[in-house]
C-alpha cells in the first residue's frame, strides 16, 4: 500500500566548461521511492573530467546505488536497523566496483573515477553515504503541527572531503576508497538536499553553509502541488541559470526531498555552525599501508604538460600483487565494518535517552515508529535534535586535509 510522504526532484546540468569543450555531462543522479512511499533514496555522482568513461560510471553508480538503497529500505520494513545496514552498503559498493572492473575488462578502473553522494531518507531518519566532494544538508521544518518549512532551524551538513589539495578529491573507484567512505546515520529530517561539487558551488556559500537564496526556490518547488516533471524542471532551471556560470563551470547536480505535508517555505538559513554529520571513524585507518609507497592515493587534477613533460601516474597499484591488494581491501573493509558497527551500536541503536530527548522536543513521540532509533544521532547531552555542538563528535580529517575558504574569485 503506497502512501507517499515525500516530494522529491533532481537534475544534472552540463557545466559551461563541458559545453565549451563539447564533452558530455559527467554528473549523474538517481532518485527512487520505496514501494510503501515511506523512503526515498537519492544518489548523485560526479565523474572525473580526467577519466574518459566517467559519464558511464557516474550513471551506473547513481542508478545501481539508488536501487540498492531502496532494497535496504525494504529490508528495514522486515527487520530492525542494525549493523547489517552498514554491511549492506559496503557490500553494494564492492559489488559496483566489481561490475566496473568487469565493464573495464581490467582491474584498473581509473577511467571510471567518480564520487558518491547519497542518502536514504525515511519517516524518522535515515542514512547518508558520502565519498569524495559534493555535500549533503538538511533539517527539520520547525513545529510539527506547522505546514511551513522553516529554513532557520538548525541544520546538519556532510562536508566535501577533498584530498590535501583544493583541486583534488577522492573517488569510489580508487583502491583506498574504503578509507574515505563516510556512512552516517541521519536524524529525522523534513527536507534534505544533496549534490555534486558543481551543484554545491551554487547551493552553498563557499562550501560552508547552505545558501538560502538558492535553496529556498528549490524547496518551494517541492512544496507545490504539481507533477514530477515540473518539480524536476524547477531544479533544472535553477542549475541552468545564466548567473550560475559565474560561480562554477563544472557539471551541476542536485537532488532534493521535502515532506509532502509541507506547503510553503519561510525563514532563512542561519549563519551558525551546523551539526556536522559524524563520520565513521577513519583515523585508525589512515596509517594503513595500501600500496608499496605507503602514501595515500589522491586523484589530482592531472597536470597535462605538453611536449615531453608528462606527469606519471602512480605505479604503486601496478606494483602491488593482486592477492596483496585484495588482502588489504578485505582487511580495511573488516576494520571499517567493525568500526561502523561498534559506532552505530554504541551511539545510535542503544541510545534511548537520546531518543527521548528528541521525541520530547519534537512532541511527536507517537508518530515515531518503534524502529525509529536509526534516526537518532543526537547525544543525550543536548535537547536540541539538530542544534548545537554539544557532545557531537567533530569530523576527523586526515592530518594534511585543509578546509576550503570562501573563494571569492572562483571562476
Amino acid at each position: 500500500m503506497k502512501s507517499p510522504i515525500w516530494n522529491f526532484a533532481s537534475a544534472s546540468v552540463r557545466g559551461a566548461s563541458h559545453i565549451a569543450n563539447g564533452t558530455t555531462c559527467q554528473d549523474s543522479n538517481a532518485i527512487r521511492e520505496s514501494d510503501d512511499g515511506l523512503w526515498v533514496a537519492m544518489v548523485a555522482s560526479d565523474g572525473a573530467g580526467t577519466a574518459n568513461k566517467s559519464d558511464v560510471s557516474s550513471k551506473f553508480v547513481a542508478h545501481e546505488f539508488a536501487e540498492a538503497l531502496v532494497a535496504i529500505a525494504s529490508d528495514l520494513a522486515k527487520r530492525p536497523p542494525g549493523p547489517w545496514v552498514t554491511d549492506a552498503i559496503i557490500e553494494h559498493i564492492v559489488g559496483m566496483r566489481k561490475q566496473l572492473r568487469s565493464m573495464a575488462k581490467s582491474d584498473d578502473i581509473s577511467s571510471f573515477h567518480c564520487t558518491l553522494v547519497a542518502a536514504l531518507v525515511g519517516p524518522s531518519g535515515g542514512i547518508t553515504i558520502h565519498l569524495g566532494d559534493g555535500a549533503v544538508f538538511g533539517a527539520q521544518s520547525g513545529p510539527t503541527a506547522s505546514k511551513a518549512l522553516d529554513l532557520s532551524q538548525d541544520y546538519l551538513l556532510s562536508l566535501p572531503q577533498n584530498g590535501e589539495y583544493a583541486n583534488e578529491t577522492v573517488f569510489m573507484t580508487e583502491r583506498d576508497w574504503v578509507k574515505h567512505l563516510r556512512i552516517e546515520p541521519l536524524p529525522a529530517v523534513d527536507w534534505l538536499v544533496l549534490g555534486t561539487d558543481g551543484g554545491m558551488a551554487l547551493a552553498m556559500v563557499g562550501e560552508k553553509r547552505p545558501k538560502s537564496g538558492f535553496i529556498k526556490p528549490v524547496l518551494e518547488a517541492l512544496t507545490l502541488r504539481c507533477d514530477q516533471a515540473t518539480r524536476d524542471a524547477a531544479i533544472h532551471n535553477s542549475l541552468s541559470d545564466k548567473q550560475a556560470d559565474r560561480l562554477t563551470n563544472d557539471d551541476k547536480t542536485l537532488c532534493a526531498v521535502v515532506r509532502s505535508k509541507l506547503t510553503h517555505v519561510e525563514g532563512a538559513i542561519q549563519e551558525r555552525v551546523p551539526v556536522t554529520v559524524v563520520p565513521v571513524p577513519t583515523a585508525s585507518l589512515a596509517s594503513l599501508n595500501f600500496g608499496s609507497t605507503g602514501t595515500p592515493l589522491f586523484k589530482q587534477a592531472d597536470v597535462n604538460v605538453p611536449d615531453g613533460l608528462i606527469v606519471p601516474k602512480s605505479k604503486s597499484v601496478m606494483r602491488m600483487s593482486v592477492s596483496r591488494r585484495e588482502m588489504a581491501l578485505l582487511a580495511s573493509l573488516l576494520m571499517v565494518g567493525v568500526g561502523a558497527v561498534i559506532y552505530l551500536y554504541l551511539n545510535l541503536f542503544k541510545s534511548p535517552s537520546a531518543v527521548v530527548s528528541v521525541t520530547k522536543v519534537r512532541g511527536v513521540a507517537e508518530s515515531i515508529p518503534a524502529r525509529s532509533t536509526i534516526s537518532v544521532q543526537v547525544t543525550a547531552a543536548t535537547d536540541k535534535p539538530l542544534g548545537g555542538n554539544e557532545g557531537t563528535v567533530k569530523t576527523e580529517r586526515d592530518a594534511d586535509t585543509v578546509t576550503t575558504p570562501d573563494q571569492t574569485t572562483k571562476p
Partner: protein
Amino acid sequence: MSSIDYSGNPNQRTPCVLVLDASGSMSSVTSSGRTRIEELSAGIAALEKELRSDDTALVRVQLAIVNVGGPSNDADIMMDWTDATEFHAFPLRADGTTPLAKGVRIALQMIEQGKQNLRAAGISYTRPWMMVISDGEPTDDANDWAAAVSECRAAEVGKRVEIFAIGVEGANLSTLSQISAKPPLMLSGMKFQELFVWLSASLSAASRSRPGDSMQLPSTDPWRNVGL
C-alpha cells in the same frame, strides 16, 4: 616563518618555489650582449608583469625564491613565501659555485613549511610547484646530491610537490633529470622571458583547476629547445 597576513585574501593558493642557479657561470655574456643572470632577472620581471595582468592568478599564486650560488656562494632563501600581489621582481647577481642539492632541499623544506602556514591560516591550496633552473651541475658532495635526489623523488611520488627541471645552455641534463620523473626541458637560447610567461600562465591554470578536472598547461614551444 612566513609573516603573510591572510585576513584580506582568503583565496586558495597555488604555491611555487623557484630554485635559481646564480653561480658564476650565469655571469657569462650572451649573444644579446647581456649576461645570463640579467636575462634571468628580466624573466622574473616578466613573471611579475604577467601575474599582475591576471586577476585570478594574482590573488592565488604564491612565490618563493631559493638562490643557488650568487654573492654568498651558498644556497639560501632569497625570498620567503610571498603572495603574487606583494611580489616585486628584483635583479639577481651571479657568483660562486652551484650547491644545487642544498638549494632543492631548502626548497622542499620551504614547501612543507608553506603548507603548514596555509593550513594554520585555514587557507586551502593546490599542489605546490618547484621549478629548478640551472646552467651547470651540482657542486655539492656526491652523497648530498644523491640525498637531495632521493628527497625530491620521494616528495614527487608522495604528491607533496610538482617538480619542473629546466636546463640552460651548459646544463648537465642527465644530472638534472634525476630530481623528477618528468624529463627536464632545455631552454632555447636565453628565452627566460618566454619561460616565465609560460610559468605565469601555467600557475594560473593550476590555480583555477577543480577536483577531477584535467589541467592542460600551455605549450612549452615558445621557450623550449626542441632540438634536444
